[in-house]
């Protein structure tokens, strides 16, 4: 008897007891649905974390000034100016793992348009900043290195600032804004960046050339970077390598002895992201374990019903053997029945799981990720459950003695 016929015979046999077949397969349905839904949800959550951190700028480091120490009281991060403009130049030019580096100087200030005003963060920087943050300009253009060199009074606005000063969807390019009563002409508008993981609005910002910032908005010390340096890394494990290189370079340049503490700080936002992902992974592993247990229980259910079925159909087995079925035909038939139950359960489970995941994703506003490998794994595993738990009942059926089986009442 070939496979196709065996499958048809199995389907007919299962079809004779539809409710029972359905209930038997239900264990596997629930197990697989749980796996699919959990993985989809886990991946959705993970993708959300990744997306959030990508908005900070992937492959990005932040280098801060050190903390001051006076009379035993430690100052906060950045309170001790230690990063010089030459340090920045060295970071930009000397390190292989660094792609770009840009200074960021910040000051809060009132910004005025013709008929509105808004308090926002003015940031003095260089065009590289937008590359580091992978943050393209949506309208107009970014200011150029020439603008920075010449201390030009130009500005690039974040979306929130545009909304507040000019209203939504306005194009302010060519307009003039005033910061501390100094006119800046708007040359571009940044694309929307959204919020940081901690709720800070990235779009509430006005970017101006760092030279102009120093001259007109906030003086600070001439030789030191009175803010932070953002660094983008290149290559695999770029962040880790860049962090190491920047640290080595700065310690060298600041002539720190081996046992001296760093007089600067390097922050790596992607570390926060990986910590979050670790948490998600633990949760996923736990849920997978629960799903595996329910698949096991489903498998036991299949085995139980298959054993009942073998006993119930002893006479049928006897007849089949009498008319020429070999032991392996009988074994295959019951194995295929168990396999059909579990794989059908698996497929229904996949559909149910995707349904649940889709529903949860829309309820929580996550993107739903469907991973074909997980679906194949789930269906494959349910097939394995069918073969594993169907084997013994099938063997038992095939070992029946036809004479005894035919006499069975």
């Amino acid at each position, binding site marked *: *008897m*070939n496979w196709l*016929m065996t499958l048809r*015979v199995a389907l*007919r046999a299962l079809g*004779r007891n539809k409710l029972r077949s359905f209930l038997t397969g239900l264990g596997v349905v629930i197990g697989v649905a749980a796996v699919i839904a959990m993985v989809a949800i886990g991946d959705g959550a993970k993708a959300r974390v990744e997306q959030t951190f990508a908005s900070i700028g992937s492959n990005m480091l932040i280098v801060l000034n050190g903390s001051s120490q006076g009379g035993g009281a430690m100052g906060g991060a950045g309170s001790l100016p230690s990063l010089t403009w030459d340090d920045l130049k060295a970071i930009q030019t000397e390190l292989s793992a660094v792609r770009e580096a840009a200074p960021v100087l910040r000051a809060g200030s009132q910004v005025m348009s013709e008929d509105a005003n808004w308090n926002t963060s003015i940031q003095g920087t260089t065009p590289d900043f937008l590359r580091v943050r992978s943050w393209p300009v949506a309208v107009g253009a970014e200011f150029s290195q020439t603008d920075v060199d010449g201390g030009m009074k130009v500005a690039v606005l974040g979306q929130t600032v545009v909304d507040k000063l000019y209203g939504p969807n306005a194009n302010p390019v060519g307009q003039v804004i005033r910061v501390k009563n100094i006119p800046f002409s708007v040359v571009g508008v940044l694309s929307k960046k959204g919020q940081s993981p901690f709720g800070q609005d990235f779009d509430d910002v006005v970017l101006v050339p760092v030279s102009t910032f120093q001259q007109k908005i906030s003086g600070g010390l001439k030789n030191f970077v009175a803010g932070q340096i953002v660094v983008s890394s290149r290559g695999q494990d770029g962040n880790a390598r860049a962090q190491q290189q920047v640290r080595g370079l700065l310690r060298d340049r600041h002539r720190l002895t081996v046992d001296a503490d760093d007089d600067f700080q390097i922050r790596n936002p992607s570390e926060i992201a990986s910590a979050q992902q670790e948490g998600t992974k633990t949760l996923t592993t736990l849920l997978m374990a629960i799903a595996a247990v329910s698949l096991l229980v489903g498998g036991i259910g299949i085995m139980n019903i298959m054993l009942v079925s073998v006993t119930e159909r002893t*006479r*049928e087995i*006897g*007849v*089949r*053997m*009498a*008319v*020429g*079925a*070999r*032991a*392996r*035909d009988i074994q295959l038939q019951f194995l295929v029945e168990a396999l059909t139950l579990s794989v059908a359960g698996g497929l229904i489970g996949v559909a149910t799981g995707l349904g649940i995941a889709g529903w949860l994703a829309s309820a929580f506003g996550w993107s739903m990720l469907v991973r074909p490998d997980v679906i194949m794994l789930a269906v494959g595993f349910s097939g394995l459950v069918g073969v594993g738990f169907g084997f013994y009942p099938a063997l038992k059926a095939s070992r029946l003695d*036809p*004479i005894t089986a*035919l006499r069975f009442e």
Partner: protein
Amino acid sequence: MAAEPLVRLEDITKVYRMGDVELRALAGVTLDLLPGEFTAIMGASGSGKSTMMNLLGCLDRPTSGRYLLEGQEISRLDNDQLAALRNRTIGFVFQSFNLLSRTSALENVELPLLYSNVPGAERHARARESLERVGLGDRVDHHPNQMSGGQQQRVAIARALVNRPRFLLADEPTGNLDSRTSEDVMALFQELASTGITVILVTHEPDIAAHAARVITMRDGLVRSDLRQAPRPAVAQAGQEAHP
């Protein structure tokens, strides 16, 4: 004897062992069955006729002795070879019909063909033909629970015939039938024997055995008598049953 025997049993014994007790179900049976012979095996329960039936049907192997079926020694064949032999050479008819429930007559009859890998179209055609042969050409889609006992037994006979066996074994085929339908079934057997099929009938009813051309009586695992007789013709009423 002119014709080559279909079945030859030579000093067959069968011993069942139940713990320390040995049960001698067959104590040395020697027998020839010719093609087209219609033989009834009679005997009380415990006489060894069921054991004989199982051996003849290749469902079991003798403890000693030789069993030649179509000249082939079968006591040395393995289980798969026996299954193939049952499939191609032997047809079984049982007292309780043993049809698969919730399965149409046609599919029941097709069952042996499934195990000899006959392709679908030919399978349907042969099963249909076999059902027509037993007078149930108009009942192919009926399920066993929609048929009378006589009809069910005829479906079982159609199933036994579908692989064109040389040898038909019927174990108390009329045991669950009333006398009128029994008569139908016996008429069918007589007709099949006349076409060259060797029919063996196990029964304890002398009335039924009277339709056979040869009656073998067994007692205590041995053949006590082996008589040839003029068979009483059965009056066929096939296809004219009052049952729906």
